[in-house]
C-alpha cells in the first residue's frame, strides 16, 4: 500500500468526522465572512491631494534651470502636481480658472541679477494670500543661498538634489499598510487556520486510542509509508481551509496587491505543513485527547499572539523574542510585503525561515510517528 492510498483514507476519515471538519472548515468560513465585513481595506497612507501648480521660467540662466530640476525631484512631485505654463497670461488664466493653485514666475535675467549681487524676485501668482507654494519656493531659495555661501568656504553643493543629511526610512515603500482592524482580522484568520493543528493532534490520538494503530503495526507496511500517508492526508484535509484564506487575501485585500499571488499560495502551503506537523507532534507526545487539544490551542494562541503584538508594535521582552519562532509572524511579513510591494529580501528571508521550520517539523513528525508505530 502506498502513501497516497493511506492519505486518501485519512482524508476520507477526516471529512467524515463532520464535527471536526465543521470546526476546521465551517467555522473559519463564517469567521472569514465576519472579517470581510470588519476589514476596512488597507491603509493607503494619509490622504494627500497634490497641489496643482505651474511655473514659467523666462530667465533661461543657470539658476532658472536648477529651479526646474528642483521641481522635478521625487520629493517635490509627491506633494505637487507641476506643469509648465506657456506664458504669464496663460498661467494667470489657469490660476483664475482654478485649474492650478499658483503660478511661479521667474523673471528674465534672474540669474544675472543674482550674480551681480542685485535683488531678484521670484513671483507667485495665487488666489490665496497664503499659499503652500511659497514654502516650495522658499525651500529653493534657502538652497540657493546655501549654494552661494558654500563656494565662499571652498565647498561644493548641487542644489538640484535633496539634502543627503536627512535619512528617510521607508516603512512601506508604496505607502500602503494594514489598518489596525485589518491586522486584527488577519491574525484572527491566521489563528483560525492554526487551529488546524487540532486535526493532526486528534487524528494521531484517535488512532492510538481506538486501537487501529495495531492493525498497521501488525501489517506488512513500512512505518515511514504509514506515517507519511497519514501526514499527507491531514495536510490535504487542511488545504481547503488555507484555500479560503488565500481567497480572502486575494478578494478582500487583493485590490492592493502588487506582488505575485503565487508567493501567497506558496506561503500558505508551507504554513499548512507547519501546523499539520505541530499538531501531529503534540499528538504523539501527549497521546491524550484533552491535553493534546489544550496544548495545540495554547501553542497556537501564543505564537499568533506574539505575531499580533509585534504587528501592533507593542511586543516587549519575551514576546519580542518569541516572535522569531512564530510562523504567523513570517506569514504576515510575506503577505503584507507581497500585497504592498514590500521588500523582496524580507519576503525571501521569511519564506526560507518558513521552509526550514516546515522541513524540521516534518522530520520530527515522521521520526516520532515511526518510533511510535514500532
Amino acid at each position, binding site marked *: 500500500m502506498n502513501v497516497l492510498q493511506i492519505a486518501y483514507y485519512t482524508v*476520507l476519515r477526516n471529512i467524515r468526522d463532520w464535527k471536526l471538519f465543521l470546526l476546521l472548515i465551517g467555522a473559519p468560513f463564517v469567521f472569514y465572512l465576519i472579517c470581510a465585513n470588519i476589514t476596512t481595506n488597507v491603509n493607503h497612507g494619509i490622504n494627500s491631494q497634490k497641489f496643482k501648480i505651474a511655473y514659467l521660467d523666462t530667465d533661461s540662466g543657470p539658476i532658472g534651470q536648477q529651479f526646474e530640476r528642483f521641481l522635478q525631484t521625487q520629493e517635490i512631485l509627491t506633494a505637487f502636481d507641476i506643469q509648465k505654463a506657456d506664458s504669464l497670461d496663460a498661467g494667470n488664466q489657469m490660476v483664475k480658472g482654478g485649474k492650478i493653485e499658483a503660478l511661479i514666475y521667474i523673471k528674465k535675467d534672474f540669474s544675472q541679477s543674482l550674480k551681480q549681487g542685485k535683488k531678484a524676485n521670484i513671483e507667485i501668482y495665487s488666489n490665496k494670500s497664503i499659499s503652500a507654494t511659497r514654502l516650495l519656493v522658499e525651500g529653493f531659495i534657502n538652497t540657493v543661498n546655501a549654494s552661494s555661501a558654500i563656494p565662499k568656504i571652498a565647498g561644493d553643493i548641487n542644489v538640484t538634489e535633496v539634502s543627503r543629511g536627512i535619512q528617510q526610512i521607508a516603512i512601506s515603500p508604496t505607502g500602503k499598510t494594514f489598518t489596525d482592524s485589518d491586522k486584527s482580522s488577519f491574525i484572527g484568520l491566521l489563528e483560525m487556520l492554526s487551529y488546524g493543528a487540532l486535526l493532526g493532534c486528534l487524528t494521531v490520538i484517535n488512532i492510538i486510542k481506538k486501537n487501529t494503530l*495495531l492493525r498497521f503495526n501488525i501489517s506488512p507496511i513500512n512505518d515511514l509509508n504509514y506515517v507519511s500517508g497519514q501526514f499527507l492526508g491531514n495536510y490535504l484535509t487542511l488545504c481547503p481551509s488555507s484555500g479560503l484564506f488565500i481567497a480572502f487575501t486575494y478578494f478582500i485585500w487583493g485590490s492592493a496587491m502588487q506582488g505575485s499571488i503565487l508567493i501567497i499560495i506558496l506561503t500558505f502551503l508551507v504554513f499548512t505543513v507547519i501546523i499539520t506537523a505541530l499538531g501531529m507532534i503534540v499528538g504523539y507526545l501527549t497521546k491524550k485527547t484533552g491535553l493534546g487539544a489544550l496544548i495545540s490551542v495554547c501553542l497556537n494562541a501564543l505564537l499568533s499572539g506574539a505575531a499580533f503584538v509585534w504587528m501592533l508594535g507593542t511586543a516587549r521582552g519575551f514576546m519580542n523574542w518569541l516572535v522569531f519562532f512564530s510562523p504567523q509572524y513570517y506569514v504576515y511579513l510575506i503577505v503584507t510585503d507581497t500585497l504592498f510591494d514590500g521588500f523582496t529580501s524580507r519576503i525571501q528571508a521569511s519564506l526560507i525561515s518558513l521552509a526550514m521550520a516546515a522541513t524540521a517539523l516534518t522530520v520530527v513528525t515522521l521520526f516520532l510517528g515511526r518510533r511510535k508505530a514500532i
Partner: protein
Amino acid sequence: MLVEVRNLVKRYKDVLAVDNVSLAIEEGEILGLLGPNGAGKTTTINAMIGLTKADSGEIVIFGKNFKDHELEIKRDLGVVPQDIAIFEDLTAYENLSYFGKLYGLKGSLLKDRVEEALEFTGLLDKKKQYPKKFSNGMKRRLNIACALVHHPKLIIMDEPTVGIDPQSRSHIIQSIKKLTKMGSTIIYISHYMEEIEGICTRIVIMDHGRVIAKGTKEELKAQMTSDERVVVELSTANYTLIDNIKKLAGVKDAYVNGNELTVISQKNSKNLKGIIDQVSESSVIMSLNVEQPSLETVFLTLTGRSLRD
C-alpha cells in the same frame, strides 16, 4: 511445523513476563492458549506478531526466522485483536478494503476477497453501513473479517468473543469451525473454557510466563489424578447420611449443602452403587450426577486459580 517458538524470554523491568516458552504448531491445527490474566499469553503472541521484541529466543514462522523476514511473514498473518480495531468512520466495506490493501490486495481480487470476508462473517448486507451503528457482536465479526480478508496462512485470535451476545458468539464460533474445516491454522486465546474445548485440537496452558501443560484435551484430562465427584439431589436435607457414606470404600469426603449431598471419592473407586443404596435407605433421590474431571478442573488444579481470576 508452521510455527516454532523456542526458548522465548521477555522481561519488563523486574517482571519476567515470558519465561523460556517453547511452542510448536502444525499446519491445520487449532491451538488453544489458556491461562489466567498475566500468564504471558499476550506477550508471547505479541512477540510472534512483532508488537514486542523478545529478549531472547527464536521465533520461526512458515520456516522463516521472524527477525530476518518480519514483513514477509506478516503478509501471511491474520490477527484478531482482543480490542476491536476498526475505523468507525469508514463503512464495513471500506474497512476491509483499507486493510486488504495493507496486505497488497488490489483490483478485482481485493473486491472478491472483501465480499467473501463479509459473507463469511454474515455482514454482506451491512457492507455500506458504518460500524458505529453496529452492535458489539457485529463489530467483533467485522474485526474478524479484517483479519481474514487477505487469506492468511496463520490466524491468531485473541479473545474474539469477549462481551458479545450469545447469537453473535455462536455465529463467530461457527465461523471458526468453518475455518478449521477449510484447513486454517489458528491460535485461539480465550477465557471461555467451553470454546477452547469445542474448537481446539490442542491446548497449551500458561501461568507465570511458563507453559505448564500442553496436549489434546483428552491428554490433559488424563494427566489429572483428579477425584470423582458424585452429587445427589435429595427430597429433603438429611445430615445423618454423612457418617455412613464416609465409611464406604474410596470415599474421601462427603457433605450436605441444603438438599444436595456431595461425595468425593478416589478415582476408579467404583462405589456408586454403595452410595445409591445408602441414600435410598433414608431418602428419596431426586437426581444424581457423576462429574468427570473437566478442563476447568484441569486448569484449576494446574494453576490453583480460576480462569477468570
